[in-house]
């Protein structure tokens, strides 16, 4: 009986959480289309999310591309299919690794910082202060982050795709001895517009999820430093899990049979 009660409580808590998240997302989206819009804050978030995430996303992409080339060679050499390495690198990166790895890295970097910043503002009454100063906290805090997440992640992923393919090229040409022109030709031939587009659609969805989870968990944090810590952890964990689930759903939409 106690076990049933426990399961019931967990399910009810989860549903209540989901309901609150849906209302939060609906309110935030509706504020995206109603003035005032804080352009300066949106640009600041573009820089925070887009520009300052470049090093971490770039490093992740280049080493992923390099290791992909190296591992594919180990496997394909057994079947004398080494020429498929360029195809594997470009398809894997544009369809999957680019958006997912960039999404997870940005979730750790940006999702955590959003939750910590907004959570601290919540527990120190700064969000209440915004309301008393005729400033809607959704418009001021949430909308700029959502818009920047939605638009900046695709840009980051596009850059990650290019850097990742370059990483594969470096290993393919300088370590595995491929002809540079052949490698580039193979890459070009294997690249499909749909692969890149599906990756960018995923990136936009991931950017929205990261910003939404960061803002939601920060906005609802309570109880001082411990509450802010919990909000930060929840933001990273929930956005990472959501990214992996949504990744499957979008892949199914684009490539499902």
């Amino acid at each position, binding site marked *: 009986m106690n076990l049933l009660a426990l399961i019931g409580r967990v399910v009810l808590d989860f549903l209540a959480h989901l309901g609150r998240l849906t209302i939060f997302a609906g309110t935030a989206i509706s504020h995206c289309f109603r003035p005032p819009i804080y352009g300066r804050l949106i640009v600041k978030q573009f820089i925070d999310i887009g520009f300052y995430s470049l090093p971490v996303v770039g490093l992740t992409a280049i080493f992923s591309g390099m290791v992909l080339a190296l591992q594919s060679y180990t496997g394909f050499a057994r079947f004398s299919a080494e020429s498929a390495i360029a195809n594997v690198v470009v398809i894997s990166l544009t369809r999957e690794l680019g958006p997912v790895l960039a999404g997870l890295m940005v979730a750790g970097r940006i999702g955590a910082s959003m939750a910590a910043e907004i959570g601290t503002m919540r527990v120190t*009454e700064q969000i*209440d202060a915004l309301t008393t*100063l005729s400033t809607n906290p959704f418009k001021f805090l949430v909308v700029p982050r959502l818009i920047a997440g939605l638009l900046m992640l695709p840009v980051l992923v596009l850059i990650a795709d290019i850097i990742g393919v370059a990483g594969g090229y470096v290993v393919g040409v300088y370590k595995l001895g491929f002809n540079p022109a052949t490698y580039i030709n193979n890459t070009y031939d294997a690249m499909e517009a749909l692969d890149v587009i599906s990756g960018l659609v995923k990136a936009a969805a991931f950017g929205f999820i990261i910003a939404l989870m960061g803002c939601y968990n920060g906005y609802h944090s309570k109880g001082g430093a411990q509450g802010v810590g919990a909000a930060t952890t929840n933001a990273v964990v929930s956005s990472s899990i959501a990214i992996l689930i949504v990744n499957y759903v979008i892949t199914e939409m684009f490539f499902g049979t």
Partner: protein
Amino acid sequence: MTDVPKISLRGVAKAFGEKQVLSGIDLDIAAGESVVVIGGSGTGKSVLIKCILGILEADTGTIAVDGQNVMHLESNARDATNAKFGMLFQGGALFDSLPVWENVAFGLRARDRHLSRDTARAQAIETLAKVGLDEQVADLAPSELSGGMQKRVGLARAIAGRPEIVFFDEPTTGLDPIMSDVINDLIVSTVKKKGITALSITHDMQSARKIGDRIAMLYEGKLIWVGPAADVDSTENPYVQQFVHGRAEGPIKMQVRR
């Protein structure tokens, strides 16, 4: 129309889960009057102010400002109503990402998006002078200021937009007695003497006597005593007596949980 109270509360109730925090608050505050609500920690004083400001929604009852119901307002109407308000938060609640002058000018720029930075800065410095702070403070970060200075900046931010009503949430909590008196004097000079309506909550009786025209005591979600500030020491209400004299023995039982 001068008879219309500046703030009018009727049957205001608010519960969090099963805990009834406010259970039927009736209170009228006239224009230019300063009312102080006293009560122990966790009795719902802050909740009362937050319901008027629209930060929390009361479950039942009506809240009117200048005779207009201000409950369940949509976003832009709430912003317009809150333009009449100023609020000094207990911990200051200064935006730590902005320098002092931008904190003070925040409300001005939110209400007039065309206000230039230079004009806003000049107005902020002018308001800082009213609370005894000079121009050098303007470019400091809030974290560089002492608790008393942060309260002064918070007060400057509250009065910068020339509000009709100012709310004070525990204005002297955490300050030494001298700084507490400085803040009380500033509240009297910048709000009370200017005819601005004020609603304060505090458990500092010295502060309540100094800044209040009337005092109301909140206990178990109800206002159990309302009267002139001068009568607070002489009333025979046992709850008020116990609170005013800070006695452990009496009808008020301290709550362990909020």
